[in-house]
């Protein structure tokens, strides 16, 4: 299962007259970390929602390894190996960490409904297998000790980690992270940066939305800058840092 390449070409989205994404073209190279940055409201999350099929696109193409996925239902996009986390963490608060992560493993369960209703051994086998896989992921993201704790009581950083583990449980080829470092302290961010690099090294393409420029510079191979729903710049962290338009549009507002 190889890392996937994602290509957006002139993708657009508007909401009742409000242009959320005007025209975005970008490529997230296979096996690399690409960052999508830009001021608040520049259309980053909307772009991610279109990639995952939650919003239909108004125009343009979204291609995963050359296959257009813009018209697919979200679960079909997920089945092609696209997983994500949410900016406003979406976990099942009353359920345990492990149960939350197991939801990501849903599509890899092999028991049929009939197996389940008849209580056949295949059910147990498939469940044991997926549980073991999810526990390994909890270990990977560093929350193995929280396995049986209801996620509603976890810290912000830990809940973001549960979301990453759940996304990894789908066994993605492309992982989309929407502001994974938001609300984390310095030490947590360092650990998260290492985790993102480890995920990349597992052969998973990463597309990352993040406001923390230090964090972005540390993990990204390539950066795309959005402003008012258009990409205004792209390049390596070094290149992007020096572009005047970026400083004006993004860093400028950040400092203000």
């Amino acid at each position, binding site marked *: 299962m190889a890392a996937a390449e994602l290509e957006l070409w002139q993708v657009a989205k508007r909401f009742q007259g409000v242009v959320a994404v005007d025209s975005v073209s970008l490529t997230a190279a296979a096996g690399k970390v690409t960052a999508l940055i830009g001021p608040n409201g520049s259309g980053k999350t909307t772009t991610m929602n279109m990639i995952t099929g939650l919003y239909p696109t108004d125009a343009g193409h979204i291609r995963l390894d050359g296959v257009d996925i813009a018209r697919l*239902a*979200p679960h079909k996009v997920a089945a092609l190996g696209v997983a994500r986390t949410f900016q406003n963490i979406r976990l099942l608060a009353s359920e345990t960490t492990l149960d939350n992560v197991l939801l990501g493993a*849903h599509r890899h369960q092999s028991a049929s409904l009939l197996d*389940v209703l008849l*209580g056949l051994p295949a059910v147990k086998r498939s469940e044991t297998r997926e549980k073991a896989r999810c526990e390994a992921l909890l270990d990977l993201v560093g929350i193995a000790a929280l396995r049986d704790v209801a996620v509603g009581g976890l810290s912000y950083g830990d809940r973001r980690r549960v979301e990453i583990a759940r996304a990894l449980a789908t066994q993605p080829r492309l992982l989309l992270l929407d502001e994974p470092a938001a609300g984390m302290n310095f030490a947590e961010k360092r650990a998260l940066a290492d985790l993102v690099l480890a995920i990349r090294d597992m052969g998973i393409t990463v597309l990352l939305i993040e406001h923390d420029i230090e964090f972005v510079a540390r993990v990204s191979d390539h950066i795309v800058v959005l402003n008012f729903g258009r990409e205004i710049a792209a390049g390596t962290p070094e290149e992007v840092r020096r572009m005047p338009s970026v400083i004006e549009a993004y860093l400028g507002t950040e400092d203000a």
Partner: protein
Amino acid sequence: MMAALDGFLASYGNLVNLCLLNTLLAYGVWLALAANMFTLGTGGFMAVGAYCSVYFTMQLGAPFAVAVVAGGLLAAAVALVIGAPVLRLRGDYFMLATFAFTEVVRVIALNWDAVTGGAIGIYGIPRYTETWQLVLLVLIALYFVFALRRSYFGRSIAAIRQDDVMSEAMGVNVFGQRLSLFVASGFVSGGVGGLAAHLNFFVGPSDFGLLRSVDALAYPILGGVNALLGPMVGAIFTTLLPELLRFSSQWREILMGLLILAVVLFLPGGAMSLLRWRPRKAAARRPSTQGAE
């Protein structure tokens, strides 16, 4: 021992049957509620199942079991046909569409004299439904719901109930699962309709309106949707209580209203939430299912 049981059934048989029947119905409705489908279609599915099975036994002379299954299957088929479009509607529109469906069925029942007996209904239906059959069906339903809840399907259904957008992004076929559950709920409701018809000697259009649908919803909601035994507890509670309150029928209605209100207001998680040991805050936290992001 057997004699004692016979004696008990002789005096309370009807009540026992009613409790069992409503328990079965409660699990049928639970199937829909479990995935956040607040269906007012139950009355309609029951009517379809009831008239169909009565047609099978009385007009076609089919065996009882065949008739009940046929009633359930026809209701399931109807659920499949209306489910595909209706499930695309959001929350309240879904509820109102299922309400409109139930009314369509009721009005058809009122007018299709040849099959439904029109406003008068059908009298003299042979009494085939027996207590042991109902017990058996309730046990089967309990086992199925138990097995479902504890499997990974149970996990994805619970996730759909709490956040369908997120579930879909995680690879759960939300529409497919909802449709399957809606059809299963239609099947059970239709089957219960058939069983009820062959228990009461009579079916008529007024048996299956809006109130029937809301009553059926009240069973699992009052008992608790999150607990395996919730629907059963809710069904038995609401069925037995009016009988135990030996007042005039008016006072019974008043007290039932008060009691249901009390349960709703003091136990927002349903009666079974009493038994669970979890801080109220976490249990009562409302899911957010609106929109992506």
